[in-house]
């Protein structure tokens, strides 16, 4: 420090050493900011208890033919609909060419259990809960922006892009399902 000429000379003599320190410090700072950002951003994602989404069991004898019951699963409504023979036939007979999001009825129910249609009751447009039995296709009608679903929960008309989602579920017995 007492000999400023020397210091200046040292810098001029070996600029790459000084550059290395700059780059190393800068890279460390960027890395540190990134490392700090990870927990700050990640805390917003679903917490462990939210992720441990309890599955739910349901007794199907509570639903009469031609009716549906709405239960809550993962904070969202789930429709459990007992379809009539006519409703099942209408769903099965619909040609795939008529569908916006083509999917057969058989793909949306369990084989041999065609009576039971289980769907996440959240409109694929913006998440409203569609109204049972309303709309042009006898399935559901979303009151928010006018999407019509058929008796298989497939989108037929309106702004929604996709069919109502079929959640993961299993029949424990003939009258009992486990959702999730």
């Amino acid at each position, binding site marked *: 420090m007492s000999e400023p000429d020397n210091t200046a000379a040292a810098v001029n003599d070996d600029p790459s050493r000084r550059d290395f320190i700059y780059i190393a410090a800068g890279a460390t700072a960027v890395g540190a900011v990134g490392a700090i950002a990870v927990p700050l951003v990640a805390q917003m994602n679903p*917490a462990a208890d939210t992720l441990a989404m309890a599955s739910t069991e349901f007794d199907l004898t509570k639903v009469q033919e031609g009716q549906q019951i709405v239960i809550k699963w993962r*904070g969202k*409504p789930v429709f459990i609909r007992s379809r009539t023979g006519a409703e099942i036939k209408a769903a099965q007979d619909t040609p795939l060419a008529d569908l916006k999001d083509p999917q057969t009825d058989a793909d949306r129910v369990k084989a041999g259990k065609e009576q039971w249609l289980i769907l996440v009751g959240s409109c694929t447009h*913006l998440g*409203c*809960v569609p*109204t049972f039995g309303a709309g042009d296709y006898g399935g559901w009608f979303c*009151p*928010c922006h006018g999407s019509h679903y058929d008796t298989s929960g497939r989108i037929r008309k309106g*702004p929604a892009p996709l069919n109502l989602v079929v959640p993961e579920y299993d029949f424990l017995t003939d009258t009992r399902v486990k959702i999730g």
Partner: protein
Amino acid sequence: MSDHQSTYVPKTGFEKWLDSRLPIVRLAYDSFVDYPTPKNLNYWWTFGGILSVCLAIQIITGIILAMHYTPHVDYAFNSVERIMRDVNYGWLIRYVHANGASMFFFAVYIHMLRGLYYGSYKAPREVLWILGCIIFFLMIATAFMGYVLPWGQMSFHGAVVITNLIGSIPLIGGPILTWLQGGFAVDQATLNRFFSLHYLLPFVIAGVVILHIWALHVAGQNNPAGVEIKSKEDTVAFTPYATVKDGVAIIVFLFLFSVFVFFMPNALGHADNYIPANPLVTPAHIVPEWYLLPFYAILRAIPDKFGGVIAMFGSIAVIFALPWLDTSKVKSMRYRPVMRWFFVIFVIVCLGLGWCGAQLPDAQVIPGLPSFTLFDGQLNSYLWLTRLFTIYYFVFFLLIMPWIGLKEEPLPVPASISEAVLAEHNKKKG
């Protein structure tokens, strides 16, 4: 203005002592007492002051409400009802806060339209304008999150619909939606973080307001003539002239505010929000608060989900670009005989969009009028009326603004503010 010399003279010993350490009194004096104000400002210029009052009212009542509110899905609705019934003057504070949001937007829309009419966004005020746009966007975010907090039916399903907009972004939309909601549906995590952000954002707004005023004091105020200040004769001191004029306007504004708070406190709200949130049942007709209806209408006008979201955000983004879309050199529309009419139509279209946003898209505009199907909807429906208005909204900014600016023959612009004032004075006398 930046070239304005400070005329503050510290009088007392304490002021002198403070002035050489932290010249905060000098800053306040130069900004709000001796600051030169164009002498031709009309009452449309009082909304800046009114908006400061609105922000202060919202922050004060909001902090008080937060002392009594519980951000939990099981208690939120009841804690709001408790504020209304049991907390001393809780009804007053909540009604002031709820109606205060509406009054805030009412004032900000007038403030923005004033800027639009008198060309307050043009050089050298582009940054001032953009800061204002940022404040407006933050206001929308804050108001939306605040509306969710009472956890009524409209709160809940409004939050579902609006957060799901993000989910429509291709590929990354789903993960971002889950990240925002903090779960797979709007639930406790969502309510809790909305409360946290609703408390934070007003202070961010206050920060941007300070930048907004700073930028205003660098560029100087625009004025109805749209010509810059040329000499001392063009200005008067901020105090008492502007402060008193602002004060009169604030009092009149508070009268209007009081009419809503005391005589019709729920007129601007929606009855469904007095039903506790039920995730299993959606209200028959979801509408946002009135001040967001035009944007909601634009969202619904586009048949594609993601396209609707783009259009809605685009309708706000285009306001940011306004300083570079308007090609006219003349600021005030007083001297723009053609543009003035397009401005009037624009105001009507914005009101029309608000009206359409509150209607069911398939409902008939003129009941009983024969109609036919055009693409995906009846021509005589709010869907097509909304589309018509939406087209004008974007055409106004993207085509009319640049094109009329080049083609229009403006009226003679006065040489100075003083000349404009004298001309008006003589016209009234003669």
